[in-house]
């Protein structure tokens, strides 16, 4: 059997998940030039929010019916934590040197991890996440798990909604204006504080959707899952051109596919069998990032100011 379609599908699924998280990095960066290092943890609490919904639902409740509720639960928790972080951790530092909110973000990420570890029941070990029953579905020669279909449907829907919001609505245009020049935007009567909160909220909501995808895919959530995923998503955002929402999704997919192909094929190249395995996929992903940044420092989709949102 030719495994290429399978590897591409695996990469696409992983990449769509990275992309959804990367949106949060890129939007916040586009508007307040802050790298919200706690975003990986906002993703993580979204996963626990969704899990909580599942655990409180009565026995016998079908997963298909539960997923929308779990998304709502995850989004509520992520958005609450994300906007609270903005209000209490970042807003007081908005005029401070750039390094200060960055350090706060790292501190916040540790606080969130430890808070879940301490107070969420049984969170000291990985928590089993509900999963769809039934075998995979074959699409174009690749087996797609039922749980993975979720992210393949959710990611384009989210991107469509976001694109519509940014270009067609008043708030979205206000967001673009704030990204270009916050001071002038304020003079034009745009409530920039509201816009910033909105950017955090949208990023957090997308992260929560990604967290549900992560849970359905891997069958578990844990208090440490935000770190690696956050780092990968940040990489995806930089790869795609930080500040650009479509770039974030593209960067995520490129990163996911690169990881998947590197695992599958680099070992087959003569003389490279030492560097091929799953353990090297992060190395190749970062090598790709460095290459892109060398030849295209602004990232894949550049940084056209008008697209920043």
């Amino acid at each position, binding site marked *: 059997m030719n495994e290429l379609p399978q590897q591409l599908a*695996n990469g696409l699924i992983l990449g769509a998940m990275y992309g959804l998280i990367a949106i949060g990095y890129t939007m916040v960066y586009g508007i307040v*030039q802050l790298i919200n290092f706690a975003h990986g943890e906002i993703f993580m609490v979204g996963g626990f929010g969704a899990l909580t919904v599942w655990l409180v639902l009565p026995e016998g409740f079908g997963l298909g019916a539960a997923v929308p509720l779990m998304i709502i639960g995850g989004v509520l928790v992520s958005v609450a934590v994300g906007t609270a972080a903005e209000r209490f951790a970042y807003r007081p530092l908005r005029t401070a040197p750039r390094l200060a909110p960055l350090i706060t973000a790292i501190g916040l990420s540790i606080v969130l991890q430890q808070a879940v570890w301490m107070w969420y029941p049984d969170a000291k*070990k990985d928590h089993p996440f509900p999963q769809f029953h039934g075998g995979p579905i074959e699409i174009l020669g690749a087996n797609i798990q039922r749980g993975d279909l979720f992210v393949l449907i959710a990611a384009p829907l989210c991107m469509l909604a976001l694109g519509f919001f940014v270009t067609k609505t008043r708030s979205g245009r206000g967001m673009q204006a704030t990204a270009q020049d916050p001071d002038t935007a304020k003079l034009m009567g745009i409530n920039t504080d509201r816009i910033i909160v909105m950017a955090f909220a949208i990023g957090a909501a997308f992260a929560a959707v990604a967290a549900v995808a992560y849970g359905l895919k891997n*069958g578990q959530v844990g208090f440490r899952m935000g770190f*690696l995923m956050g780092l990968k998503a940040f990489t995806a955002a930089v790869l795609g051109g930080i500040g650009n929402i479509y770039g974030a999704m593209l960067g995520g997919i490129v990163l996911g596919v690169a990881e998947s192909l590197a695992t*599958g094929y680099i070992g087959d190249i003569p003389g490279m069998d030492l560097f*091929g395995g799953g353990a090297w996929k992060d190395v190749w992903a970062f090598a790709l990032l460095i290459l892109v940044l060398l030849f295209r420092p602004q990232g894949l989709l550049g940084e056209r100011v008008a697209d920043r949102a």
Partner: protein
Amino acid sequence: MRQRSIIAITAALAAGSLTLTACGSRDDDGGSSNGDKTTVVIGVDAPLTGDLSALGLGIKNSADLAAKTANKKEYVKGVEFKIEPLDDQAQPSVGQQNAQKFISDKNVLGVVGPLNSSVSQQMQKPFNDAGLTQVSPANTGTELTQGDGWKTGDSVRQFKTFFRTATTDEIQGAFAADYLYNQAKLKKVYLIDDQKTYGAGLAASFKANFTKFGGQIVGTDHVNPDDRDFNAVVAKIKKTGAQALYYGGEYPAAGPLSQQLKDSGQNIPLMGGDGIYSGEFPKLNKKAEGDLATSVGKPVEQLDSAKTFIKDYEAAGYEDAYEAYGGLTYDATWAIIEAVKLAVEGNDGKVPSDGRKAVLDAMAKVKFDGVTGTISFDEFGDTTNHTMTAYKVKSDAWAPEFSGEPKLG
């Protein structure tokens, strides 16, 4: 430019945060006597937080139970045992700091732990320099006692202070190979490890014995222990026609690996060592049915010697289960208690002024019937108990399949 530099600073900070380790100091208790009894402290080092905390907390509680039992029985007259648990977070650097803390506390006469062989590698030398006895209930890395030469039959004792109640990966990997080839009759195996001391050693000894029997390793790969997505690796296994997957590593990664393997339509078992023999494994992996693991000794539940242990553990009301290393930890702790007893008896009923040396000298003479069988140590500090058991997941729980000593190919 400002924006570019903020990204650079961010990257640097991210790297920095990775190297941050938890620092914290704990005040020593000061006085070592309470009334007519001398307090002897047994240090316990294990991951009490993080992915492996289920195993670590089982270790802490089982050591605590051994100390409490000794105190209750007044097993060593005039000595009150106390446990000092430190959290190594399964990180070698933290383990090394903990080793220093134990060494600087003069009341510590022996240390139980750690869980991970990679952590142990950082603790052995400081303990050796300080002459402080260490008994690990869980380290199975063969080179920890016998050096890297064990693969070529050139074993040399590495550290005079290191002992263990767990048997080595050499035995464990060989036992798994013996089981898969001779009992399960599977001849083609795909081999994956997580590159840690434990996982890589296990995979190496599995491979050596499996190929000696005539089995075929149809492919090898390495993964990162923090990964949860193995679909790319799983797709590679498919084209090899493997009949089983042997994984050298621990359950947090083995769970999703096994599940994704089966999701991809390959209904072959994943087999691993004691690192996946945890109750968490079938919980995290809905398709664990039929997966295999080896663990040291006979199942605790089958041994008469273990019945008291299980009863006492339940009676003590610990929040966490004793997990895979409970019995071995109890025995490791008890070995130190026995050594203290020998030292005290050899010194007219008092703890010798040079307690650490006396305990270390006594370790070679320690022999008792423990929870997991007869406990004594050979010339390398390894346990003389080589019995292993293969377990299979049946109805979402581990069930013992076969016990014995490994046959070598």
